[in-house]
C-alpha cells in the first residue's frame, strides 16, 4: 500500500523468511541457549576430572558452536530483520514501534552475550590451573545471557499470536506479558537443551576417533543430559498447545500440513510424538550402552529436532493467519480498521504506488494484476510456491476459469478459507482481479517485485483527505 512491494515470484516471500528464521532458531537454540550450558557442564566435568580429555572435547564442541554462531547464527539473526523488513515491513515496523525497548534491551543483552562468548572462547587456553574455576563460571554466565536474549524475543513471538490486553491499553508491558509468553518459554528452554545434546552427540562422535574411552563417557553424559530435559520439553509443549487461543487452535490441524490435506493433521501430531519418542530412545541408548551406539543412530536426534522445530515454527507462523498481529494487522499488511475506507474508495486509488488508478473496461487485466500485487502477494506467488494458478487449478479442476465465478469466490474467500483475510478492495477492483486471475489460465506469467521493476507510479488521484465524504 504505502511501500514498494518486494516480491519473489518463485520462492514465495514467506518462504524466504521461513528459511532464514528456522536456520536462526536452530542455531540459536542448539548452539547458544542449549549449547553453552552443555559446554560449561562438560568443562566443569573436565575440571573435576582433569585426566580424561573432557576439557579438550568441550573445547572442540565449543569451537563448532562458536564458529557457527558467529557466522551463520549471527547473520541469520540480522537476516530476520532484513527479510521481514522486505516482506512484511508494515508488520515488523509496527512491532518495532511497540517493542522498541524490549528489542533495545535484548540488543544490550546480545552485545553482552557476544562479548562473553568471545571472551569465553578466546581465553579457554589461557585461563588454566587456578583460573579454570573462573572460566567455568564465565561459561554459566554466558549461558544466562543467551537464555535472556531468547526470553525477550519469545515475548514478541507470542505477542504476535495473542496480543492479550494490548488491544486495550497498547503499552509495552501488557504487550510483553501476553498469555502465551510463559508457555512458549517453558517449551523452548528445555527443547534447546535437548537440541544441544543432539548436536553434542555428533561432534563427540566425530572428534573422538582416537579415544574410545572418552567417547563412551561423553556419549553417556550427553545421553543423560538429554533424558533429563526431555520430560520438561514434552510438558512445556503440552502447556503451550493448550494456550494457543481458541480460534487459532481450530486452524492448528490446517497449519500442520499442506493446508488442503487436513486429514494429515492427526498423522502430523503422531509424527511429532514419534520424533520425541525417537529422541528419547537414542538418548536412552547413549546413556545406557554408549559403546553400542551406532553411527546412524547418532544423527537421528539432530534430524528429529530439525523436523520438530521446523514444524513448530511453521505452526506458530501459520496459526496467526489471517493476521500478522492478531486483531490489529492482517498478513497482507493492511489493518482491518482501514478496510471500510479501502473497500469504499479502492486500493488502486488510495495506494501510494500504482500504475493504474482508474478502472476502465480496457485495463481490467492490468488493474487486476496490480490489485493482486497489493492484496495477495504477501502469501501467494503466481506460479511458484503457494502459487495462485495451482490453487485455482485445484479449485476449478478441468473447467474454464470464469471471472464471474472467481469474483464470487473472492467475496467469500475469508469464509471459504479462514486463514485468508477478506478481500480488501472495492467491488470494481474485485472484478478486475477476477478477470486477471481468469486470464492467467491461458497466460502464465511471473510477477516482478519492486526490487526489479521499481515503482513506476501515477500520482495519487485521491489524497486521503479528499477521499473523505462531503
Amino acid at each position, binding site marked *: 500500500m504505502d511501500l514498494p512491494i518486494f516480491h519473489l515470484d518463485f520462492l514465495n516471500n514467506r518462504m524466504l523468511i521461513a528459511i532464514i528464521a528456522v536456520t536462526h532458531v536452530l542455531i540459536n537454540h542448539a548452539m547458544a541457549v542449549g549449547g553453552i550450558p552443555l559446554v560449561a557442564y562438560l568443562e566443569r566435568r573436565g575440571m573435576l576430572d582433569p585426566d580424561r580429555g573432557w576439557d579438550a572435547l568441550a573445547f572442540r564442541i565449543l569451537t563448532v558452536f562458536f564458529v557457527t554462531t558467529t557466522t551463520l547464527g549471527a547473520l541469520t539473526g540480522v537476516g530476520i530483520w532484513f527479510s521481514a523488513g522486505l516482506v512484511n515491513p508494515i508488520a515488523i*515496523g509496527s512491532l518495532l514501534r511497540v517493542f522498541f525497548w524490549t528489542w533495545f534491551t535484548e540488543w544490550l543483552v546480545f552485545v553482552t552475550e557476544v562479548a562473553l562468548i568471545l571472551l569465553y572462547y578466546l581465553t579457554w587456553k589461557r585461563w588454566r590451573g587456578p583460573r579454570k574455576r573462573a572460566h567455568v563460571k564465565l561459561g554459566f554466565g554466558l549461558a544466562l545471557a543467551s537464555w535472556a536474549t531468547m526470553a525477550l524475543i519469545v515475548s514478541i513471538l507470542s505477542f504476535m499470536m495473542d496480543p492479550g490486553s494490548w488491544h486495550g491499553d497498547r503499552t509495552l508491558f501488557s504487550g510483553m506479558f501476553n498469555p502465551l509468553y510463559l508457555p512458549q518459554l517453558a517449551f523452548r528452554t528445555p527443547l534447546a537443551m535437548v537440541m544441544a545434546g543432539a548436536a553434542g552427540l555428533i561432534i563427540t562422535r566425530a572428534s573422538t576417533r582416537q579415544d574410545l574411552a572418552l567417547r563412551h563417557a561423553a556419549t553417556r553424559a550427553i545421553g543423560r543430559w538429554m533424558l533429563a530435559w526431555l520430560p520438561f520439553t514434552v510438558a512445556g509443549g503440552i502447556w503451550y498447545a493448550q494456550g494457543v487461543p481458541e480460534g487459532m487452535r481450530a486452524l492448528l490441524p490446517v497449519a500442520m500440513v499442506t493446508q488442503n490435506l487436513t486429514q494429515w493433521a492427526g498423522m502430523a501430531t503422531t509424527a511429532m510424538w514419534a520424533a520425541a519418542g525417537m529422541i528419547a530412545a537414542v538418548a536412552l541408548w547413549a546413556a545406557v550402552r554408549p559403546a553400542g551406539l551406532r553411527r546412524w543412530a547418532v544423527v537421528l536426534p539432530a534430524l528429529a529436532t530439525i523436523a520438530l522445530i521446523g514444524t513448530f515454527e511453521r505452526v506458530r507462523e501459520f496459526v496467526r493467519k489471517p493476521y500478522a498481529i492478531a486483531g490489529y494487522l492482517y498478513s497482507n499488511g493492511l489493518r482491518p480498521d482501514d478496510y471500510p475506507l479501502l473497500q469504499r474508495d479502492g486500493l488502486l486509488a488510495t495506494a501510494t504506488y500504482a500504475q493504474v488508478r482508474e478502472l476502465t473496461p480496457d485495463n481490467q487485466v492490468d488493474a487486476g494484476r496490480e490489485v493482486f500485487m497489493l492484496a495477495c502477494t504477501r502469501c501467494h506467488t503466481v506460479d511458484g510456491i503457494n502459487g495462485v494458478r495451482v490453487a485455482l487449478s485445484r479449485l476449478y479442476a478441468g473447467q474454464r476459469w470464469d471471472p464471474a465465478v472467481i469474483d464470487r469466490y473472492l467475496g467469500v474467500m475469508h469464509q471459504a478459507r479462514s486463514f485468508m483475510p477478506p478481500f480488501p478492495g472495492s467491488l470494481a477492483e474485485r472484478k478486475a482481479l477476477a478477470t486477471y486471475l481468469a486470464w492467467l489460465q491461458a497466460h502464465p506469467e511471473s510477477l516482478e517485485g519492486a526490487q526489479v521493476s521499481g*515503482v513506476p507510479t501515477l500520482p495519487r488521484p485521491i489524497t486521503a*483527505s479528499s477521499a473523505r465524504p462531503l
Partner: protein
Amino acid sequence: MMMMMTPIPRDLPLPLPASAFYLEPLLVVAFVAHIVFVNLLVGSSLLVFGLELRGRKDRDFDRLARALATTLTVNKSLAVVLGVAPLLIISVLYTMQFYTANALTGTAWIGLIPGITVTFVLLYLHKYSWDRLQDAKGTHLGILGIAVALLLFIPLVFLTNVNLMTFPDRWTAVRGFLDALTLPNVLPRYLHFLGASLVLTSLFCVAWFGRASYPVEEVFERLTRPQLRRMFYSVAFVVSLAQFVIGPVVLLTLPSRGINAVVLAEIGAGVALAIPAVWMLWKEMVDPESGRRFFKIVGLLTVTVLMMALGRHNYRYVALREHRRAVARETAAWQLASEAARVQARTGVPAAGAAPDGAALFASSCSGCHAKDTRLVGPPLTEIAQVYQGNPAGIVAWAKAPGKKRADMPPMPAMAAVGDANLRAIAEYMLKAGAP
C-alpha cells in the same frame, strides 16, 4: 505530465517509542559505534591482504599479517552486533523512507545476509589454515582475496540504501539496486569510507603493535617497534591526505537540499580538527620513537568522526524534513478518513464534521507569506480574492505549481504536499477572508 513525482506514503499510525529528540542522537551514537568496527573490519582485511602478499618475500610481514588477522575475529563480531542498534533505530525513526529504499534495492539488500556469512566463514578459514597452507600461499591468499572482494562490495549496498532513502523524489525513477547505485554521491562516499577504514585501522595498528607490552622481539626477526609505527603512521598519513581531496567531492556531489549552515558547520569543524591531526601524523612519522602525540591524534580524529557523523545525520534530517512533514500530514488525514469510513460503514451515514479546517490550514501553511490586507512575502488575500473570485480550483492549481507573475516578488514555493482537499479548503477560506 512527466514531472518528477515525490511519493508521500502514510506512516504507521502508532506513536514512536520515545521522543525523536532522544532517538535522533541515539542513532548517531549507535551508528558511530557500529561504523568504527566496520572500518576496522574492512581496513584490517585490506591490510592483511597487502601484508601477506609482501610476506611471500619477507617472512616478518607474513607474521605481521597473521597477527593482524587474529584481531579480526573480535572486530567482525562487534561490527555485526553493534549494527543491530542503528538498524532498529533507523527503522523506527525513518520507517517509510528506510523500508522503501530496502524494497527498491531488495535483491542486493537480502543478498547481504549470505554475502556477509560467506565472508566471515572465509575469514575464519583463512585464519585457521595459516599453518596448513604455508606451502600453498596462492590458495591461502585466494581465500582472503575473495573475502576482501566481498568486503569491498558489501558497504556499497548499505551506502546505496541510506543514500536512496534520503531522496524520495528519486524513488519512482529507480529500477533495482544497480540503478540506485548510480545516483550521484554514492561513489565518492564509498571512497571516503574506504579511506576512513584505512586510517582508522592504521592507527589501531600503531596502538596494537606499538604498545610496550606487545612482544615485538619474540614475534619478528627483524621488524622493530619504531619501524612498525612508522609504517602504519605513513599509511594513515597518506590516506588522510587523500581524504582531503575526496571529502570535498562528497560534499559537492550531495544534492543541496539537505545542506544548511549547521550541516556545513559540523563538517567544517570536523575538517578543521583533522588538519592538526594530520600534521601530528607527519611528525610522528618522521620521529617514530616519540609516540607522544598518539593520544592527541586519536582525540582529534575521534571528534572529527563524531562531527562528520553529526553532519551526515543532520544532512539527512534536513533533506527529509519536508518529506516527513508531508508524510505526517498525509497520515493524519488518512486516519480521519479511515475513521469516517468506519462510521459510515457502520451507520450508513457519512460522518459529519470531518471537513478540513481551511482557516487553521491557512494559518499553518500559508500565513507566513500571505496576510489579509497587507503585503508580506506574497500578495494579500484581498488581491488574491479579486484574481480568483469564484474560482477556488484556480488557487489549488496555482498552489500546487505556482508560476512567476509579479516582478517585484520572489517565486512562491510549490505547496502540493499540503494535499488537494486541504488546498481546496484553504482556497475557499482565502476567498471568504479576502472578499471585500
